[in-house]
């Protein structure tokens, strides 16, 4: 590295500083404070200069580093470790993961908070796996996936509160409703691809949410639906004091009453639902319809020239993806016992798409890793309140910088002629 390089990188860092000043100056530097009869501006130039200085310094470090052409060592090690994860190793990894998930509620350090986070992560994993069918396999970028989550949650809530049917009847019904809405969305967007499809699906997600807010007679509008029945353990409710002549979960098994029973049951419920989603996806990927989805992602015109019906193929992808979204939605409704349109905003769709894309399109294990990483990091920084979204954004940037194709991007063929050579 010679003198010129240093001067060049120094100039570049100064320019970075200029941009930082332009950004931080108004945003951080001018703070409005209300004192008595009006708003006053309190300048905070100290902090601005500190931030700008940090930017210049950081940029300078990066520049020098790139001139030296040395990489941060831990990153290359991390990268080579990840790329060595083939699907075979991923299988061991998956089995270990599932075993861990099964014993997780009984580990000594597991408390109520851990369980809640685990349930949340599992919900996102299930949603990610459902969306993976649409985005990862069929290549249809769906930015309104939360709509199906909402349809599932609301159909579960409405059926359960109106008719009083049990969770196990309402769950498939909610899935069917969501699948129906998937087909409903599918028809108008059949001819669209890429950006245009993304815009329409985004609009669809908003339409569903706005209908939920405004159709007061049915959905109770912004007030939401309360008193959604909790699921029971094969007919045994999780109640402290069961009705006369009835058992509840703890009296039947002769246990001390604990609120954890229900949490643990919910945990296993979502675990099983998620694993069913995964099993189904892995299975259907190897069937003709799964191959047709992937072929459609690769080249739609070639598909038509081979006699593959693109309409049916797309609609099944939308319907099946939506169905799993609906299942996840009914789980969400029964866990919360209260739902309102607030829970189904665009940010949810964005998070699910982020999980699928960052995990590596079409990779089932990738979805798990991305969910744990994104949701976990956001949870670790919960104490920072609204700033925890910075951690979320940071995690996304990290993955995109070091793994631009997603955490696990290697695809294994659905069928082999020569068997496993490796």
């Amino acid at each position, binding site marked *: 590295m010679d003198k010129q390089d240093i001067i060049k990188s120094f100039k570049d860092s100064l320019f970075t500083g200029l941009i930082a000043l332009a950004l931080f100056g108004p945003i951080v530097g001018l703070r409005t404070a209300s004192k008595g009869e009006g708003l006053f501006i309190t300048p905070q130039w100290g902090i601005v200069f500190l931030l700008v200085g940090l930017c210049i310094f950081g940029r300078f470090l990066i520049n020098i580093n790139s001139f030296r052409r040395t990489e941060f060592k831990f990153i290359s090690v991390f990268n080579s470790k990840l790329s060595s994860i083939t699907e075979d190793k991923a299988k061991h990894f998956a089995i270990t993961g599932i075993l861990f998930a099964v014993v997780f509620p009984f580990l000594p350090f597991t408390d109520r908070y851990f369980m809640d986070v685990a349930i949340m992560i599992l919900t996102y994993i299930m949603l990610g796996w459902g969306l993976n069918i649409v985005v990862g396999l069929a290549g249809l970028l769906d930015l309104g996936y939360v709509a199906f989550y909402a349809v599932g949650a609301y159909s579960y809530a409405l059926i359960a509160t109106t008719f009083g049917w049990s969770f196990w009847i309402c769950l498939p019904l909610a899935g069917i409703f969501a699948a129906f809405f998937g087909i409903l969305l599918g028809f108008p967007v059949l001819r669209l691809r890429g950006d245009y499809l993304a815009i329409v699906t985004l609009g669809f997600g908003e339409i569903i949410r706005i209908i939920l807010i405004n159709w007061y007679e049915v959905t109770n509008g912004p007030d939401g639906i309360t008193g959604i029945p909790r699921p029971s353990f094969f007919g045994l409710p999780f109640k402290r004091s069961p009705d006369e002549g009835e058992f509840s979960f703890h009296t039947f098994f002769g246990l001390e009453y604990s609120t954890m029973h229900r949490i643990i049951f919910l945990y296993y419920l979502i675990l099983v639902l998620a694993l069913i989603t995964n099993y189904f996806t892995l299975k259907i990927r190897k069937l003709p319809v799964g*191959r047709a989805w992937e*072929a459609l992602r690769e080249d739609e015109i070639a598909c*038509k*020239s081979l006699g593959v019906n693109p309409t049916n193929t797309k609609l099944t992808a939308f319907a099946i993806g939506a169905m799993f979204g609906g299942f996840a939605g009914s789980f969400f409704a029964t866990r919360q016992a209260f739902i309102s349109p607030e829970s189904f905003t665009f940010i949810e769709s964005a998070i699910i798409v982020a999980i699928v894309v960052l995990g590596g399109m079409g990779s089932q294990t990738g979805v798990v890793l991305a969910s744990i990483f994104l949701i976990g990091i956001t949870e670790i920084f919960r104490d920072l309140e609204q700033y925890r979204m910075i951690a979320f954004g940071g995690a996304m940037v990290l993955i995109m910088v070091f793994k631009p194709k997603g955490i696990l991007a290697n695809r294994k063929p659905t069928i082999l002629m*020569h068997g496993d050579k490796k």
Partner: protein
Amino acid sequence: MSDLLSVENLTMKFGGLIAIDDLSFNAKNNQITSIIGPNGAGKTTVFNCLTGFYKPTTGQMYLHQLDHKVSLRKYTDFKIAHVAKVARTFQNIRLFPAMSVLENLLVAQHNELMIASGYSLYGLLNLKSYKEKEQKAVDKSKYWLDIIGLTHRADDNAGDLPYGDQRKLEIVRAMCIEPKLLCLDEPAAGLNPKESADLNKLLKFIKNEKKTGILLIEHDMSVVMGISDHVVVLNYGKKIFEGTADQTKKSKEVIEAYLGVDE
């Protein structure tokens, strides 16, 4: 030799532009019919009309079956391949690059496999009948891969194959739908002389052994003259000549179209 395809008074207009102007020709069973002509003569448009990607403005196209004829106008889109059994390849190769060679060939057998898998139901239940049908489809793929010598690369991604192999793979993928008529759009483009010779062999095999009629668009005259039984020459959307390869070489109209006329 009986007729396989008859095109009658086909006209295709894009706004004011007449891409094909009142074109009529026949293609026979077990023959290779070439369509040649300078760039922009409307060759690919003819293919797009035949394979359902365009709806012709006027005119008819018939595919002759044993005892009746089927109008190709009735079918659009994917049904041309599925019902009428007309397969095609593309000028710029359209494989499924991120899928394996074998998967490419299995997608071509999608419709049979879909029925065999009971629209996914039997497949999900792991029924034996589906497994057998799937194995049959794999065997059929292997048969074709053996012919083009790509069996050892069956599990590699199609996008990783060399260019010449991709061309051949696209042709056998089209053959996997068991077409009555195979339309090839410049299959020799970008091939070296050895690969062109291989291609000639493959096309002759398809014609002689599979009894499939081939419709060929090609600029490479070594391919056209070497294997064509019948040549149709287009210029500005009009048929200017029709005949055997030898007749075409000597035709004054064809030479004029390619080389220009002395003023």
